[in-house]
């Protein structure tokens, strides 16, 4: 049974990954669209892209952005996770939902929020100007882009590290505390090193997301000519007049190639997985570490990060949603209005869009986690080359940038006839989302699995439980934080996702993301802002409730 189960997992993942990816590889070796009757085998696309200086500089910029963003996001995210999960930080329950806002808010909206707040004529900038005579920062710069990308990805890292920390056996920290270590020392030498797999996973995933960034660089970098790989890709859709799929495919594959060293390095660092197995058999009551004198400075750090990363853009967006005009020479008190919210009511398909989005995020997200859990369990404690194959495999779909992965899924659903009827249903969207976020959902689960000590499962087996019963009664309950974390992440990713499904959407299957993009095209930023406010409030409420429920499982 185990054998068939495992082969099933490997074959399924290989199929769903190589479907879209295979098409793109094939496309890269052709002279034009693969479905065009005049397409011929050709290396021309590689010759063009690899020789183009625009590609080189875009690749360099992307590398820099990814690196800078990872360096900012991972340490900060880990620190926040430690503070919120393991210590007696005040106001924890209140802070956590806010922390997650940057994950589900569309990056275009986030970037626009920054423009309204700290852009050249943003309200905060104008205020600073009136005080200092000049604006001491420059939003539209490489530096601005890296800082904002880094800060807004802190929650991603937070989610991975915190779910691992929640499962950590408190006795190890307790031992360090009894031996006289302060909270910072415990974090740096005990807690965080023990969740190293999650920190490394999140670093690799965030690094990859750096190459994926599109909304932020489009709004913050593009007007000044700052090109990253995705905006370079965007250029390729128009550069030659008609979209040049073969060139786009080559650019996408250059990012795919990057995943190999990334996964390799990560695997090398995690060779001895046994070191991290800390979910033991003996249950222990969890007592938060006292921060002592650091209590309030620690709250200060968290609040400062929240202010810059969440409040600033959110205030920008919220402000835009209640004014008819803004910027230089405007007295905001005179232009206040609720018209944008009223106007939103007349907008066709709004309600359906919201319902679809929540369905896809809530139920779809849960189904995806179910699928990821099956894959995770199949690879669990399996000493085989197939596991390393899986490790590489799952990273590949997200390495394809949104602009091209959307096309790839359209092609798959059009040209692979057995699944063609699904194309116009929400189901196609769900499949595409599940495949693209495979690595991200799976990592949270497999990181938790790494923490489970083998003796618990062995004990169950000794008393005669079959493999299914071991998983159902022992393994899965032990990794519940990983599963919940994974669902939370998928919920938020699915709520915000748009480009993956852009070609699968139609009347009846609209989502909030598509509404935002269609409004963006006409410049209805007032309506986008109003819609985003509604989104933040409703998703925030759901998260708040979910976190409460998650916490109850803790008891």
């Amino acid at each position, binding site marked *: 049974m185990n054998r068939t189960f495992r082969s099933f997992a490997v074959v399924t993942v290989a199929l769903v990954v190589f479907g879209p990816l295979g098409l793109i590889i094939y496309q890269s070796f052709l002279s034009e669209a693969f479905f065009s009757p005049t397409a011929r085998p050709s290396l021309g696309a590689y010759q063009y892209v690899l020789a183009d200086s625009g590609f080189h500089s875009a690749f360099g910029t992307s590398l820099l952005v990814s690196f800078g963003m990872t360096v900012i996001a991972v340490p900060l995210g880990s620190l926040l996770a430690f503070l919120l999960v393991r210590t007696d930080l005040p106001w924890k329950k209140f802070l956590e939902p806010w922390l997650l806002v940057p994950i589900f808010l569309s990056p275009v909206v986030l970037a626009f929020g920054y423009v309204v707040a700290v852009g050249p004529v943003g309200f905060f900038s104008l205020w600073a100007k009136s005080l200092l005579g000049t604006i001491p920062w420059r939003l539209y710069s490489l530096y601005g882009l890296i800082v904002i990308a880094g800060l807004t990805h802190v929650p991603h890292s937070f989610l991975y590290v915190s779910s691992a920390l929640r499962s950590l056996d408190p006795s190890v920290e307790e031992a360090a505390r009894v031996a006289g270590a302060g909270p910072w020392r415990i974090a740096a030498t005990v807690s965080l090193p023990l969740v190293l797999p999650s920190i490394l996973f999140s670093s690799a995933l965030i690094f990859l997301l750096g190459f994926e960034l599109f909304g932020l660089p489009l709004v913050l970098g593009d007007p000044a000519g700052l090109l990253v790989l995705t905006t370079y890709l965007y250029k390729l859709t128009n550069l*030659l007049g*008609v979209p040049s799929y073969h060139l786009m495919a080559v650019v996408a594959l250059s990012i795919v190639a990057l995943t190999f060293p990334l996964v390799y390095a990560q695997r090398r660092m995690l060779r001895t997985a046994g070191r991290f197995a800390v979910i033991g058999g003996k249950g222990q009551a969890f007592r938060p570490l006292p921060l002592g004198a650091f209590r309030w400075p620690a709250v200060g750090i968290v609040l400062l990060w929240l202010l810059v990363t969440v409040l600033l853009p959110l205030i920008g967006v919220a402000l835009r949603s209640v004014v008819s*005009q803004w910027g*230089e020479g405007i007295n905001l008190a005179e232009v206040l209005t609720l018209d944008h919210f009223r106007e939103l009511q007349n907008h066709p398909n709004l309600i359906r869009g919201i319902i679809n989005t929540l369905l896809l995020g809530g139920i779809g997200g849960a189904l995806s986690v179910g699928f990821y859990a099956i894959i995770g369990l199949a690879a669990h404690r399996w000493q085989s080359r197939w596991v390393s194959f899986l490790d590489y495999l799952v990273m590949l779909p997200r390495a394809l940038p949104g602009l091209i992965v959307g096309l790839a899924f359209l092609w798959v659903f059009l040209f692979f006839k057995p699944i063609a009827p699904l194309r116009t249903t929400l189901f196609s969207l769900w499949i595409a989302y599940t495949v693209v976020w495979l690595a991200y959902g799976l990592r949270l689960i497999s990181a938790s699995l790494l923490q489970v000590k083998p003796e618990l499962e062995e004990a169950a087996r000794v008393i005669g439980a079959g493999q299914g019963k071991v998983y159902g009664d022992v393994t899965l309950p032990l990794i519940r934080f990983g599963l919940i974390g994974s669902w939370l992440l998928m919920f938020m990713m699915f709520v915000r996702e748009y480009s993956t499904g852009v070609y699968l959407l*139609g009347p009846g299957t609209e989502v909030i993301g598509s509404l935002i993009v269609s409004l963006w095209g006409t*410049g209805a930023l007032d309506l986008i802002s109003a819609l985003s406010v509604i989104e933040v409030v409703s998703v925030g409420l759901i998260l708040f409730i979910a976190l409460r429920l998650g916490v109850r499982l803790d008891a």
Partner: protein
Amino acid sequence: MNSLRLGTLVFCVLMASVSPGYTAETNPNAAAAQKEGKLIIYSSTDSASVEPILQDFKALYPFLQVEYNDLNTTEIYNRFTAESASGSGTADFMWSSAMDLQIQLASKGNALTYASPENSSLPKWAIWQNQAYGTTFEPVSIAYNKRLLPADAVPQSHADLVKLLKAKPDVYKEKIATFDPEKSGVGFLMMTQDAKVFPQFWDLAKGLGATGAKVYTSTGAMLEKVGSGEHTLAYNIIGSYVLLRQKKDASLGYVLPKDYTLVFSRIAFISKSARNPNAAKLFLDYLLSKRGQTVMSEKSLVYSIRSDVPGPITAAGLNKDLGKAVKPIEVNTDILAGLEQTKRLEFMKQWKEALKR
């Protein structure tokens, strides 16, 4: 603003009298369309703006279920080509502002030949082979911020703009926005037309470069930033978009350049492989009809292409105001010259050099 409201009022009165003349029974395609029962449209006209048009169309033909897909121009092209190639059915009616892509699709045999009964009321240049139809008459303008730019400082022509950039590069530093021709097909089309009509175009490009102009991929983003004052002026903005935005943001204004005003048209064609060709014909006829064009002009605030539709937001109005300065981009295969790769890349290169990017 008031004249607009008045216009709407007049329009409502008119509608009551016009409508009996154009009904479902009078169109010979109506019976066949009723059997089809459905119409699939891919369009780049956003759903909020098209709503009045669709509503009126549905009122005429209540038996048709209209599936309106609001997509961007690249998405329309990508979807249509892939769906056609896979043989799994695609749009019946294609309506997009990417004039070049639409003509390219039509010229490759994707469009159904159909002589609309409205043909005689359209300018000759707006119809290509009875396949591709120009449906609108939209002037390309210079948008500006009324709050920050006094009326007498606003350039009234392309030549004025060149002079302004030369005279005051510091005042306009990073204050000007325009399309990025590398990323926007519409932007590219306008600029190549500019380069054709306007001998000083490359001086203009250099002037934009010298002031550190910002380049955008969408009109919406530009207008938002002109409204906020981050930019004071945006070059090559479709007038209809400014009109729509003016309803909400009174600080936006636009100028139709006196030396020449490019006129741009959203192109429609009926797909050759349409499953509902008769419904598509019905929609094309309606869109080009006096009734449809009147709704377009007065409710959707998109310039009508028919000379018999009165009012400010119409071809008639523009021709009266600007006379010979009106330069429509004609609906024919000349546009495809812009898709020729070496020339296209050469233009982009020259643009980047002028802009010093």
